[in-house]
């Protein structure tokens, strides 16, 4: 199988994962499905924004810190921790053990999900759409990631 090669983190990497997620119907059932939220991703100092609309992740873009205010929540880890999570996903085809998003959020002292606005209703979208977000990042198993 020829797998798309992309460097993490980059818009190209998120676009490749979006493509996997958007095209696989299996990722839109089984507790996933319609999802409407704006997710920030912080990798060290680099920031990205993912827009989920209905059944697709419609956009991935690089953003500046001020744009984090537009995110319902953002997922933040060091580049090293993101790498560990993505390598676990590559190895198993999906996140296992302590590498699922929710486990990382509760298991890390500093958490995984945060917001700049402090509105719990919007922060709760991380819980409400957790399976969709998990499927999205699990989709990275189908691309070849370099770091």
């Amino acid at each position, binding site marked *: 199988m020829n797998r798309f090669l992309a460097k993490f983190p980059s818009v190209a990497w998120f676009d490749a994962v979006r493509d996997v997620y958007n095209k696989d119907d299996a990722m839109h059932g089984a*507790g996933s*499905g319609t999802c409407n939220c704006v997710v920030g991703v912080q990798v060290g100092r680099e920031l990205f924004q993912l827009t989920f609309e209905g*059944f697709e992740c419609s956009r991935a873009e690089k953003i500046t810190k001020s744009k984090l205010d537009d995110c319902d929540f953002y997922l933040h880890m060091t580049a090293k921790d993101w790498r560990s999570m993505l390598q676990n996903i590559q190895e198993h085809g999906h996140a296992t053990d302590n590498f699922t998003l*929710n486990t990382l*959020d509760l298991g890390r002292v500093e958490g995984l999900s945060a917001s700049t606005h402090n509105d*719990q*209703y919007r922060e709760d*979208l991380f819980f*409400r759409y957790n*399976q969709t977000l998990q499927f999205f990042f699990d989709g990275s198993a189908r691309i070849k990631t370099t770091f």
Partner: protein
Amino acid sequence: MDQETHNGAEFDLDLGWMEKQGEWGTHAEPSKNGLTLADIQVGSYAEAPEESRNLSGRPRGAVPRPGSMPIGNYTVRTKSEIWLENASFLYEEALQRQWSSATDIPWDTIEPLPDDVEQAQCQMATFLTEVEFVAGDVPSRWVSKTSPDFYEARNVLMAQVMDESRHMDVFRKRALANGGGLMRATGATAGFVGGIDLARDFTEMSSRLHLSGEGAVLTIFRMGELMAYNDAEKAIYRLCAQDEARHVAFGVMHMRYMAANAPERREEIESYLDEAEAGMLTDAANPAGQLNQTSESLSIMLGGGRKYFDEGFRKLVSIRKRQLQEYQKRVTSAGFGDRFKNGRSRLGQMMANVAN
């Protein structure tokens, strides 16, 4: 009787019903996600009345039938009593994000666990089955009490009942799937959790069930993924947490609507929150509290066995603090955050106690 009389041909055909229409000529159009409830909020069909006199089960927007007898005992007939701005959205989301406890959980990943861990898992499964029983029973009662004019909110509650029945079955399945079984009932259906069903008013019920109760259980479900021992348990807790977050969203949005539209009920709602904070969030009724069957089983699972109870308990305390913080932020988001600044809420004291 001759043939002509038998056929009724001596009567004119009465098609008067064709003239008794609601608003005609509507063309609701599907959006990106199909023809959703939000898409059919068009013209007069979108208008939920402030007060409903509909006692006959008439669909909102249909023409009333003169002389029709009341069929529903609808005590919820004021819009603000049950309304929230995004009910249509939550309902569609609930339908589209359903899952099956039979086929969407990778049951084949469950493997034998040490006895103490299996007992702890089964105790939690027993407790959660009890709790979900209440969470399903209560909204279903309120569905039948709510005017059909507020069908959007009713539909969300009916979807919640479906969610809760799935939670009941999935935890029962977990208890019976790995060499264990159900443990001793915890009595969760008494005390604060059972008291949810004593609410005399929908908002009273929603503040107890959706905001306080389900908010606390949401944290337990999320914690469940952290202390899961296989992919099946991770999936169970993750998927239940999603559903629970949707129920919590109903509560937050309803409270937000109440805060904005029924200021005369503000003090009453504050008193419901007082009760919740004194009940669900204190030790005795909180599954993540201290020294009860559930907190002990949580500590064993979080620690990795009875031998590591203290380590598990330390994790539990840190998660419990987060549970209280999330509750505080939800109440603030719902429009009742002043209570944390003006000294009415004892939550700060509770959080300090948790830290100790």
